[in-house]
């Protein structure tokens, strides 16, 4: 049976619990679910693998210059769109241009393409179509994360005719599947496209049909559906839910990630503009206990600097220690012994629980803290402005990526209002070092600054989990929540 199990089996219908949200332009996607539903026909230039490597998909290969300012992309030959058009270098260029259009609200790709942009649009000459199968990118500044960014879920490659908002309504793509139905909040169905020859024929597209079932956010109903045999796997399970799924015959698969929760201060708001306050609050919290109580010990302890041991450039610093008494003393010194702090979080259970655990630690130390939990819809309205709140950060393959996004002075997603010249310039420097080991030295200093400035309490790096029935294969949890159902199969 062992050998038998290795051989992918063709056919079958897979039913997966996953939120189905209203579709829109891929570059503005803000939920991986949006991308996952479309992965059957919208493919990517490159894929990020579970093991951390990058695998070329619509590209065959690429090269970067040493200083990471010039990239040459080789387009995979023989790829066709499902309407029959061949896939060429100009399609690649067209997509990059789309990504660079910052005038589209919510286009998050624009923030990743900064080195190719100028005035909210693609810089003249940034992208050169060398020939039908070659594209050259000329960067204005070094960017080691450019190719990795192209594996991010909003970087789905669309046909030049795609204008509207909805990739389901007009599903022209290069992949082997086609959408059958798509009802936000209810579910979606994709089926294998019989009229299209997929470039990677034979290495996937095993399933005939995939049904996504949106069961809402309440994990109890996922369990109920599983108990009733209505789903084969879930999208993601958290905390005790994982155990329950285990118990009812849906074993878990784990992905160790650099995804985390940032319990961050906004330095524009008093009293968090006071570094002593920040450090005192940090000191009151034992990250290991937060991991245990807030996240069931399903991850690894983090060190308040937002660089993960699995990042290639991670530099190990001396361990941090919690000390409730010292924390309170420091707070007293800063004159905030009786100040009432308010920790805001979204209503997502694991985040709320983590914050509850953080708050409980602070309370144990004698700090006066209250909690506020906001529903998702409202939380995101002001997520960068809350004085003291927790934000979930998905994993980025490189350590510098999140730092660039979230801690650089004036960054759009800089929710901490952290502004430190040394940090900014060190980050610039790191961005230009393509070699990870070389980058690590700069990183050590960057991480230290983060800790010394008390930018955030980052209790842990979370592992993420998926439970699937035993006859589902290839569907192990992916660190960036990729559901590449093209590769899944059922026995």
């Amino acid at each position, binding site marked *: 049976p062992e050998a038998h199990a290795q051989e992918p089996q063709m056919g079958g219908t897979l039913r997966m619990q996953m939120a189905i949200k209203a579709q829109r332009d891929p570059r503005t996607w803000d939920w991986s679910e949006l991308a996952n539903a479309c992965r059957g026909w919208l493919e990517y230039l490159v894929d990020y693998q579970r093991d951390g490597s990058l695998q070329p998909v619509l590209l065959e290969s690429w090269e970067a210059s040493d200083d990471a300012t010039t990239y040459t992309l080789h387009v995979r030959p023989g790829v066709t769109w499902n309407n029959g058009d061949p896939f060429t270098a100009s399609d690649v260029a067209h997509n990059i241009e789309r990504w660079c259009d910052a005038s589209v609200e919510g286009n998050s790709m624009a923030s990743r393409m900064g080195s190719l942009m100028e005035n909210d649009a693609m810089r003249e000459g940034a992208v050169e179509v060398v020939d039908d199968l070659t594209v050259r990118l000329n960067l204005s500044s070094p960017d080691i994360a450019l190719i990795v960014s192209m594996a991010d879920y909003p970087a789905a490659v669309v046909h030049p005719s795609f204008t509207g908002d909805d990739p389901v309504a007009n599903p022209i793509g290069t992949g082997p599947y086609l959408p059958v139905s798509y009802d936000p909040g209810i579910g979606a169905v994709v089926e294998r496209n019989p009229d299209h020859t997929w470039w990677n024929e034979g290495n996937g597209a095993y399933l005939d049909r995939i049904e996504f079932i949106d069961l809402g956010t309440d994990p109890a109903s996922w369990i109920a559906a599983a108990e009733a045999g209505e789903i084969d796997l879930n999208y993601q399970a958290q905390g005790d839910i994982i155990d329950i799924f285990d118990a009812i015959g849906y074993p878990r698969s784990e992905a160790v990630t650099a995804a985390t929760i940032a319990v961050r201060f906004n330095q524009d708001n008093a009293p968090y503009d006071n570094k002593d306050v920040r450090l005192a609050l940090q000191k009151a919290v034992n990250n290991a206990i937060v991991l245990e*109580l807030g996240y069931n010990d399903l991850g690894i302890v983090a060190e308040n600097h937002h660089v993960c041991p699995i990042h290639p450039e991670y530099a190990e610093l001396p361990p941090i220690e919690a000390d409730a008494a010292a924390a309170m003393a420091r707070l007293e010194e800063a004159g905030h012994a009786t100040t009432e702090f308010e920790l805001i979080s979204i209503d997502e259970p694991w985040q709320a629980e983590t914050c509850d655990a953080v708050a409980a630690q602070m309370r144990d130390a004698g700090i006066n803290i209250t909690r506020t939990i906001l529903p998702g819809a409202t939380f995101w309205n002001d997520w960068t402005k809350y004085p003291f709140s927790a934000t979930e950060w998905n994993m980025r393959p490189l350590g510098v990526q999140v730092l660039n996004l979230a801690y650089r002075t004036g960054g759009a997603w800089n929710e901490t209002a952290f502004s430190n010249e040394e940090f900014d310039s060190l980050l610039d420097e790191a961005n230009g070092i393509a070699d990870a080991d070389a980058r690590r030295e700069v990183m050590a200093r960057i991480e230290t600054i983060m800790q010394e400035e008390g930018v955030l309490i980052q209790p842990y790096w979370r592992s993420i989990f998926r439970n699937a029935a035993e006859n589902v294969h290839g569907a192990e949890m992916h660190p960036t929540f990729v559901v590449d159902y093209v590769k899944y199969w059922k026995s």
Partner: protein
Amino acid sequence: MDPLNWFEILARMAQQFLPVWVALVVTYALSIRFKRRLGLYGKLFDSTVGMIGFGIVLFWLFTALFADLIVTHDALSQVSGMRNEPPGSALRDPRDLYPYYLLGGDSLARDVFSRMVMGAREVLRIAPFAAMISFMIGITLGLPAGYFGGKLDTGLTFLANLVLAFPVILLFFLLVAPEIQETIIPSVMAGILFLVPILFVTILLNARFFTQPAKRNLYVGGVLLVGVWAYAGLVFDADPVGLWSMSPNLLNVFVAVVFVNAPTVFRIVRGITLDIKSRDYVAAAQTRGEGPWYIMLWEILPNARGPLIVDFCLRIGYTTILLGTLGFFGLGVSPESPDWGSTINAGRRLLTVYPHPALVPAIALMSLVLGLNLLADGLREESLKD
């Protein structure tokens, strides 16, 4: 240490509840002794159903009162190693803490027993108070609507029906939303809603004592003083002494709950008023030349108390359920609050493996509502008998 068995758990819980038992015994002994002199309350002790119901309600009431004496742990503190532990589990490292989690730990390693006890306080702090304000509003509007009739009645009834036509949950989603919390809407509504009780008592006393200005000024002045003080604290959070205050969140919940309940009370009061106003003693008051408010508040209202008290009991129960509903939709009061609704909702996810964190507050909530219902039933039965 070994975990406790069920017998030990029960024994230890009974021990923790000692203050409640004492208070219960004293109350019952006194009440039964003097029941003939205590009017409707005394009659309650003639009805088994009523006594059981009252006992349950009183149990929770005393639990709320003596919560600080009863709890074994802080309701918010989390103890390492106690996540989802079953009832009777011993603490790994008790130090100076109570060595057991009597009813186990929840998913955040907090003591389920203590949370349930503190939850009683949380629930009994809001529900009766909200029901009371609803009643005052329903009464203040229902009396004139029933008494004067005409356009006023038509208008108020339309408004009441308007609110009643609103699906409760939609109303909650619209009113308890955090976005609304930041606007002035809750404050304005609270401003209006909390004004009514003050007006109510003022008119009540004025109607009664206007023939004796000295007394009237004293009473009304006193009421206004306390009223304005509480009002400033509750609505504007501007109480100089700091006795009265309400978080915007709570205020919002409060306003929403009152808003949902008041129209129903209005309808009941209006109906009773229509009935009572045709009685001769009302006519007698009219022939004395009494003002309409005196007649409404002193002639009609006291005689409507029977059904109103019954409904009040039911309404507290209903409000408790409503608060739970809010918790169910994540709209509840403060997030760590041990109130039963949110606790049930939090515990329900793990129900199939760790039933205790959800079951304990669920049973508590059920028993309180059941008690209130039984009490109302007993009261209804006894008030009909004479």
